[in-house]
């Protein structure tokens, strides 16, 4: 069973360590702009940060759109991988992805996206608060379900807001 990155935004402190770890792992340089994962600041209105990253779609829009078949599925990790040797930097994938989670790296003129680091994501390893965890695909929603189950079981009278 493949694992995927589970984001628990409520635990994110905005430290950007995940972006640093990603850029260092992929490019051997501390350069957050080239991180495949990005953290967004909604502090003023929502009081939280939200990390965002490729969800590794089953039927990937980016791969569908690529005119040179440069994006393929890794059978082991179930991550969609950009073959730099084939990529022409045409940006069709960045237009096709509804989530914006594949982008254009202007330094090398190629598409870049999360490849799950071959099954051991550096961002997850670096996250100090478990806002990012690497869990079995099938158990992605399990913790949320558990919280909802507790909230709706009838005995929990103090729960006033939705969990998560």
């Amino acid at each position, binding site marked *: 069973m493949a694992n995927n990155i589970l984001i628990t935004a409520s635990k994110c402190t905005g*430290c*950007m360590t995940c972006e640093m770890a990603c850029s260092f792992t992929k490019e051997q340089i501390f350069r*957050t*702009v*080239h991180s495949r994962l990005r953290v967004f600041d909604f502090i003023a209105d929502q009081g939280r940060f939200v990390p965002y990253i490729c969800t590794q779609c089953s039927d990937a829009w980016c791969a569908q759109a690529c005119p040179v078949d440069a994006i393929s599925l890794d059978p082991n990790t179930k991550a969609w991988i950009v073959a730099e040797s084939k990529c022409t930097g045409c940006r069709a994938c960045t237009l096709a992805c509804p989530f914006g989670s594949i982008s254009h790296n202007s330094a090398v003129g190629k598409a870049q996206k999360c490849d799950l680091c071959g099954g051991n994501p550096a961002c997850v390893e670096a996250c100090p608060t478990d806002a990012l965890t690497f869990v079995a695909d099938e158990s992605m929603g399990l913790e949320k379900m558990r919280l909802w189950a507790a909230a709706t079981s009838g005995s929990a009278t103090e729960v006033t807001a939705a969990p998560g």
Partner: protein
Amino acid sequence: MGWQRKILRVNLSKGTCVPEPLNMDLAFDYIGQRGLASRYLISEIDPKIDPLSSANKLIFATGPLTATMAAASARYSVITKSPLTGGIACSNSGGYFGAELKMAGWDMVIFEGKAKKPVYLHLDNQTATLLPADGLWGKNVWQTEELIRQAHGDRQLKVSSIGQGGENKVLFAAIINDTHRAAGRSGVGAVMGSKNLKAVAVRGTLGLTVRDPKKFMEVAAASKAKLAAQYETNTNFPKYGTQSLMNLMNEVGGLPTRNHRQNRFDGAAAISAEAMHAPRADGSTNIVTNQACFGCNIACSRISRISQNHFSLKDKPDYRANSGGLEYESAWSFGAQCGIDDLEACTYANFACNDYGLDTISFGATLSAAMELFEEGVITTKQTGIPLPFGSAEALVAMVELTGKGEGFGKELGMGSLRLCQKYGRPELSMTVRGQELSAYDPRGIQGIGLAYVTNNRGGCHLRAYTPAAEIKGIPQKMDPLLTEGKANLVRRFEDTLNIVDSSGLCQFVKFAWTVMGDFREHLEAACEGDFSADNLWLIGGRIWNMERMFNLSAGWDPKGDTLPKRLLREPVTVAGGIEKVCELGDMLPEYYSLRGWTKNGVPTKKTLKSFGLLG
């Protein structure tokens, strides 16, 4: 590496931006940030200049570890000659701006001269442009950041700027980045305002490398694990922030109250970390979440929301959102020091200080001096406009805005506590050292901090030798706060190690779990070329301290000014164990001079200066 090896020199009089290589010989001798930028400043300005004249310079500096994978690598500093103390100023800030400046490829930006009209500096990596700030002048920090991002169509620009406080040359004006992180102390914002420099906006995508990346990542991970294993840094600071100190300092009799008339505040619990977490009438809490600065796995920063029906928010829609909440020093200065127990009013004052660009410690402590003048009948509503008794939240809320705007009695508060008390003939009521307002630790209940205030090269402040770590928290070893024995050495060692921390680009808080000669040395050795052996680090620490001291003496500091306000030396308070205490400064200062290799009058000897390579 670690360093970008590049500095930008901006001449505001001529309107030029010229890059130059970083002087690596100096970098090896002073590391970066505080030490290195101070060395540049001191060798480039006459110590006697008027700090608010065009002859002063203003340096934004990162360190070699800024924006690396090291923990708490967010820091940058602003270095200049202080208009508040007349000595060297170095104010250090977190958030995201410092890392962005470093990733844009700069170790430092040196501002010289004075612009004819208001300008701001835009840095797009290595492209530097001075742009007119006509539409920004008169605006406060939060709006300035937003307007600059809009003007460039770039949501990711990081901005460091002054509000009306700096424009009006409030002597304790701060420079603020990322809406609520402050290069706060000693009036660096007033110097920026005097130069007609409104803001520095930067986008940095070049990144940086370190000397031995593999080793560096190992060191960073091992040292982060230490922070994650220590109670202060894994639980206390993330949950309660520095505000966890409020009830603790009150218990030990170390919480200055009502302009240091007392050392305990009966309203301390109401303005504490626990109060920030307590549900309000509508079920909400003052605290919304904690936040990290760039690269930090401690995340001590507070994000707060003012109670939406609090009187301070009338006609203040901007302050209804979430923003930076109370740190201990700020909660103390607005709260205990002014005798105010209204947490929401204190939070409002915090938001307003960040927006107007004012140092929270100096503003609160200056207001407390005014409150004492008012209660003594020295000033009346004739001067102040509204009553200023201790405990008045209404006065706090009104005065913060007037001070930022430079209107009414706020104009007098903007001079700082010493000049205010001098003006009304009562200088002894100013709780300052070298003209800078003291921090939130009473040296009668915590003896070592009294010496640290006095020897501090930037005037009264707790951030050059944080003795409460040892005296109250027992880190690294517990020392009795009421004894003077061993404090001279504690202060000296603390000063020299923090000189290194401040020069590296990391936050002082990592020191709760790290040692400077262990973890820090390993970071520097893996990141940078140069000699970072323990012996050389001690030498660098001492060199920075003696250099700053010599600058201050040349600038006109009389060593006789190495003293505390008389109240702290002569008016005893009841401390732990029911004992009556004053600060026994006289027991500590001569020993400190001796340990430093200074004369008994506090002047570094030629032999001492020579040992640090500071002669010729």
